[in-house]
């Protein structure tokens, strides 16, 4: 090895670096690009998942686009996205700011807050379903009428429960992101503010929030794009019901594909899902502004 003539380190790095991306690329192609192309092709066919695949042109697309279930599912998806974003973001920012403090008790609480994130969505959904059962659940057991509502059986309530459980599960994750963001803000900014006589609340709105701009965009992107794919939790909790009150696009796709055996229309919905996800991610990047690389920190 040492006897071999070595090329200059710079050249070596340049020739090897692209190859380091190869494993990730192969996995990405095998598990994302290939299925995506497959789904796109399937959306122009008729297939019941069992028999032969017949090409059928735009039939599936026509069926999906004229079905009143699609705008309904899109609307529910959008609502889940918007409401859970509106619930999660302020709570996560506040919790993240709180956890960023150096005191011991804050660190302990931070660990406690983190627990929901370690549970699987299916387990969370089963637990909440049992707790919220109007006849055998928490409210009925403790004889508290306020808690023994028909939580998952009434459209509005079921929607609220879905948003609540989603938030309960993911707020810890986003709090963590904000905690990191807050800890990066230079102390000197706060010291200067204190000298100018700014109180805690003024400091939060005047320094913390503006400094967290990019953290908010990152966290929001994760929330918004992630909420497009909510499936397991809603499937176990409500199966999209009652009626179609919580039937989001991902669930609609699954039901069409695997319960109704209509793989063509289900694939068309999958393509729509991909397009909506890409559009949202692009939009959020735009919102981040052209100077996304610019520092928000000291001296910016």
């Amino acid at each position, binding site marked *: 090895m040492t006897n071999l003539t070595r090329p200059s380190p710079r050249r070596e790095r340049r020739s090897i670096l692209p*190859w380091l991306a*190869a*494993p990730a690329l*192969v*996995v990405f192609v*095998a598990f994302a690009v290939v299925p995506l192309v497959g789904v796109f092709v399937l959306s122009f066919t008729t297939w*019941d*998942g*069992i*028999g*032969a695949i017949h090409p059928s042109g735009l039939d599936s697309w026509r069926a999906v686009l004229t079905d009143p279930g699609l705008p309904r599912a899109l609307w529910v998806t959008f609502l889940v996205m918007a409401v859970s974003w509106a619930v999660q973001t302020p709570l996560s920012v506040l919790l993240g700011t709180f956890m960023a403090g150096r005191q011991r008790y804050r660190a302990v609480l931070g660990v406690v807050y983190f627990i929901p994130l370690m549970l699987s969505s299916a387990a969370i959904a089963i637990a909440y*379903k049992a707790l*919220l*059962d*109007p*006849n*055998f659940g928490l409210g009925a057991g403790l004889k508290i009428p306020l808690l023994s509502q*028909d*939580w*998952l*059986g*009434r*459209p509005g309530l*079921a929607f609220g429960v879905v948003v609540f459980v989603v938030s309960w599960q993911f707020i810890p994750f986003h709090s963590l992101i904000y905690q990191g963001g807050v800890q990066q803000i230079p102390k000197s900014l706060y010291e200067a503010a204190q000298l100018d006589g700014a109180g805690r609340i003024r400091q939060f709105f005047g320094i913390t929030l503006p400094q967290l701009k990019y953290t908010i965009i990152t966290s929001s992107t994760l929330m918004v794009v992630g909420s497009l794919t909510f499936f397991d939790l809603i499937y176990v909790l*409500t*199966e999209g*019901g*009652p*009626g*179609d009150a919580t039937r989001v696009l991902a669930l609609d796709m699954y*039901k*069409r594909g*695997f*319960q*109704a*055996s*209509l793989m063509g229309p289900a694939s068309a919905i999958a393509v729509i899902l991909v397009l909506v996800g890409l559009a949202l991610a692009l939009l959020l990047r735009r919102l981040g502004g052209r100077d996304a690389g610019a520092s928000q920190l000291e001296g910016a």
Partner: protein
Amino acid sequence: MALSRRTLLGLAAGVPVSAALAACGSSGPGGGGGATYWYLNGQPQEGVRAGAVDAFNKAHPKGKIKDTTFQNDAYKTKIKTAIGAGQAPTIIWGWGGGTLRTYVEAGQVEDLTSWFGEHSEIKNGLFPSSFGAATVDGKIYAMPCEVVQPIILYYNKRVFDQVGVKPPQSWDDVMALVPRFNAKGIAPFSLGGQSRWTNMMWLEFLFDRIGGPEVFQAIMEGEKDAWSHPDAIAALTKVQELVKADGFVKGFSSITADSNADQALLYRGKAAMMLHGAWSYGIQQADGGDFVSSGSLGYMNFPPVDGGKGDPGNTVGNPAQYLSISSKAGAEEKKIAKEFFATGVLQDEESKKWIDNGSVPIRLGTEKLLAASKNADFLQFTYDVASKAKVFGQSWDQALSPAAAETLLDNIAKLFQLGISPQQFATKLNAATAK
């Protein structure tokens, strides 16, 4: 030079991945000797099924069956996916009817007609009515097995005594009972509405009692606007009247039948009545403490509707369960499966276990066993309902094609939510089932 090296490296990187991908798919048929068999879990039925497999394996150490169990609602999806992916088990457990037809049309299951021809003693030993849902275009594609399961109206006698009322003899009685129970804080009917097929049973009976079996027959034959038949609309309207009168337990839309919570409501006295399959008797016996053994569980056929055309003796439900053989299985596995059909299905031991659990096996000549059972009354009742019904309608979601069944179940949930009117329901279903 650079190009060839890149190609080589690409190949080297690609091979393990494709090998890994291929390995993912090798757990299905042919995966190392013996036949595979998937069926539903949930006691007490699971124990009987597993017992039959164990007994068969003990007698056939060289050609064993490996069994795997699934939850009801999950299985319906899983089995379709597995068959479509060429990963079906050797023995496919199912409900016959429309789903079996899709398997047949895709060439995924063995034609058993000639096998039954050679083994006529097997065919002649089973309820003749069980072969209808196993037959597609005149050929038999499944072996009927297990038990006959009509849908039964169960009621809690303790609750009826407590309120001081009698079981309903007509639909008007049903509607009159609703406020009586509600006044005492007892739900008139338990219902696991999130599972949707539970709601469907109500429509199956109301369609039959009001319009006779012809109404659904027309739907099955793909007749245009069959759901808009006046009797169909009347049945849909009646069920919504019952919902509006608070006939069903609070929160029925979020109760799943797979959890047996709907049955717990009945035996715990939180609900007075429940429309459910004959299999529910065994579950209530197993889970309900002394509810069944103390004679507190009442049962009857669905009451007639005044002025209705249907015979009050008609019933609906599952005429049997069905075992098919995957056409993709190897010759050795198929042989084991057929051996299982001939010597492993509904043997004396299994039949006896079904009877102990309060079910009527579809084997002929079990009258003595039925009469000797501790559940003799219920078994005699089930046997009579099943054998004396002029029409034994197959469950709609099993009779229809999967796509039509999904539209049906979806809209039934909305109908029970009062989210759509009977007319809207009919319009949507007409589009789904008309040929």
